[in-house]
């Protein structure tokens, strides 16, 4: 009796810390809204909040309201795992979106198999979906695909000898490894391999080294944050004539601002989100991209980022799966999710299968070239 009373007291406390249980369908999210990965989590959280509001205004899913339970894990894997436990046990959500970073995603992942709850990650690394875990999906393309896309463009220009200059942060290190891994199968040869630290302010020596390598034809810069902007400026200062490729990690207007005029002529793989008005009329992604940008700009008065796009896609995949499942049973939602076919999102067109929980192919990436401070798709 007393034990029950105490337990009731504690769960009352839990209720107090959670949200009122009015909504019919609860979707959970644990994102890095603050902290070192806030640039990922913040637009993701904003996107989810906006979409839930929009969905409920339009009558919810099959007539049922949706409630979003969102926690800020600050990119701390430890916290993320705690929040995932909380979402599953206390908030009793039917599915979870989140893990802005690979670390938080991987820390949470084992829980979803234990509790049989579908989970859609917004992080990049291949390890999340390879090997495939039954309940774990993800929306962003992998850095491996970015390398393949860049290499495909390089070989289509008749070049094969590539120099890498990589950042040593998580993003750069992981992508560098993937690029080295796929180089051979993509038909290119890595002839130079340099790196720089996250806060380095001059990459001239590394670039000079690369440029003086025999037969070098193109430079690829896997990196993130300000490093690639510095590389781009140094590249222009040195007047190098081989093409420079940046990664999808810097595919934002911010990068053009940072790199200035030096950015002109740079190519990089990106989502169609950067070129909403240049997409062909019959492009299946045209509609979602323009919808998303319009809604986000209206809600927050700023342009959405690629990362917010990952959340946009995760949410739509989930809503679509719940609608098709016609049920809020997590396992049935998972089954429907895995059966997703040709769902056009802002990042790409998703087709999941038991062997593929990312569902994107190389067509998800568009190679863009920076021209007069703007983006221009490169004809393939």
């Amino acid at each position: 009796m007393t034990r029950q009373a105490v337990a009731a007291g504690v769960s009352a406390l839990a209720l107090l810390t959670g949200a009122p249980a009015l909504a019919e369908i609860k979707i959970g999210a644990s994102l890095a809204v603050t902290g070192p990965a806030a640039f990922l989590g913040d637009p993701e959280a904003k996107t989810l909040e906006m979409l839930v509001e929009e969905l409920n205004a339009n009558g919810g899913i099959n007539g049922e309201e949706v409630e979003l339970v969102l926690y800020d894990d600050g990119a701390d894997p430890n916290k993320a795992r705690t929040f995932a436990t909380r979402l599953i046990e206390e908030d009793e959500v039917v599915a979870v979106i989140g893990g802005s970073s690979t670390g938080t995603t991987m820390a949470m992942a084992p829980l979803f198999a234990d509790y049989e709850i579908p989970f859609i990650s917004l992080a990049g690394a291949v390890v999340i979906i390879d090997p495939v875990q039954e309940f774990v999906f993800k929306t962003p393309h992998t850095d491996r695909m970015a390398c393949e896309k860049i290499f495909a463009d390089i070989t289509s220009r008749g070049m094969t000898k590539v120099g890498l200059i990589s950042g040593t942060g998580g993003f750069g290190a992981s992508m560098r490894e993937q690029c080295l891994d796929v180089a051979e199968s993509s038909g290119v040869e890595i002839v130079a391999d340099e790196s720089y630290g996250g806060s380095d302010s001059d990459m001239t020596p590394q670039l000079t080294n690369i440029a003086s390598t025999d037969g070098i034809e193109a430079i690829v810069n896997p990196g993130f944050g300000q490093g690639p902007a510095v590389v781009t400026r140094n590249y222009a200062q040195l007047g190098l004539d081989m093409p420079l490729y940046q990664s999808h990690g810097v595919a934002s207007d911010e990068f053009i601002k940072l790199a200035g005029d030096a950015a002109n002529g740079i190519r990089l793989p990106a989502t169609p989100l950067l070129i909403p008005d240049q997409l062909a009329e019959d492009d299946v992604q045209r509609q979602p991209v323009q919808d998303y940008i319009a809604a986000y700009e209206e809600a927050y008065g700023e342009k959405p980022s690629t990362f917010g796009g990952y959340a946009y896609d995760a949410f739509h995949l989930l809503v679509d799966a719940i609608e098709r499942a016609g049920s809020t049973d997590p396992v049935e939602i998972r089954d429907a999710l895995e059966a997703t076919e040709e769902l056009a999102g802002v990042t790409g067109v998703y087709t999941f299968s038991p062997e593929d929980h990312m569902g994107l192919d190389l067509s998800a990436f568009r190679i863009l070239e920076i021209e007069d401070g703007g983006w221009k798709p490169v004809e393939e």
Partner: protein
Amino acid sequence: MAGQGTTTAPQESGREMQARTEPARRRVIGPGLRTFLIFAVLVGLGALIFPSSYFYRVGTLVWINTLAVTGIVVLLGYVGLVSLGHAGFFAIGAYATAILPNYGIPSPLAMLAGVALAGLLALAVGRPILKLSGYYLAIATLGLGMLIWMVLSKEAWLTGGPDGMVVSGMNARNLFKMVGLKLKSAEAWYWVAGFAAAIGAAIAVNLAGSPSGRALRAIHDSDVAARSLGVDVAKAKSRAFVISALYAAVAGALLALANGYITPETGGFMHSVEMVTMAVLGGASSVFGALVGALILTALPQVLTVFADYEHMVLGGIMVLTMIAMRRGLVPFIVDLWNRRKS
């Protein structure tokens, strides 16, 4: 302690000795055992009221943090040395537990190896850097922590790099299964972490009352005075440094196993600061301070998620107020208050 007793009265007859130790015997249980029992009761109390795995999960983190912070209490509270690099030792324990099983070494051995490695590193590094004091020591330990963090995030072939790595191996559930108890894994880890924290606290309390512990506290008050009393200051400091590193490494190994995944951030600067903050907030002079600090800084953010936007403000506010109003931390403040009321 026993050694001291016999040196003062080597030739006493059994009867006299009994009379002499009478006051000591009145306390049936020693301070270490008492601390262990208090912790055990708290662990049990938690298990009694926790309604779900989520609570066990938060409880597990509280005990693991308590264990790590107990090490800081030994170093900061007993000797008065500030380390901003203890997350490094924490991470060594964690990563050894993660890495070694990949080379065929079973988890318990890997854990021991990690703890031993952290202890050896503390021993090797301790002697030279413990000559420093105050800010200089803080900076030197900070450097040590950064070095460890850099190795963990750069050596991707071994540690998985900045994205971290999976910890395969032992689950505490199986431990309980062997004795016929079927627990959820969150519950199992809670008991293991609680037990570890209780043992750790008991050892720390026993240490405080032992001659070595008294030597440490003498150093806390004054290096010179301690030396003039015949305390080998360098040795004592180094010993405290190693002990606190061992605590951090055990906690790290437990966290790695309980989480099943670790990233270099476990060894990051912010984690070091967090550990010291917990100790200072709760009161660095006692193991109960470690518990209270760990409890507040682990559980409060969970409660504060309702005011997500103000979470950092509230947390920061609590810490600033504690430091202004209760300089020595929460537990010593409350103990003082209690004593003043009684008198």
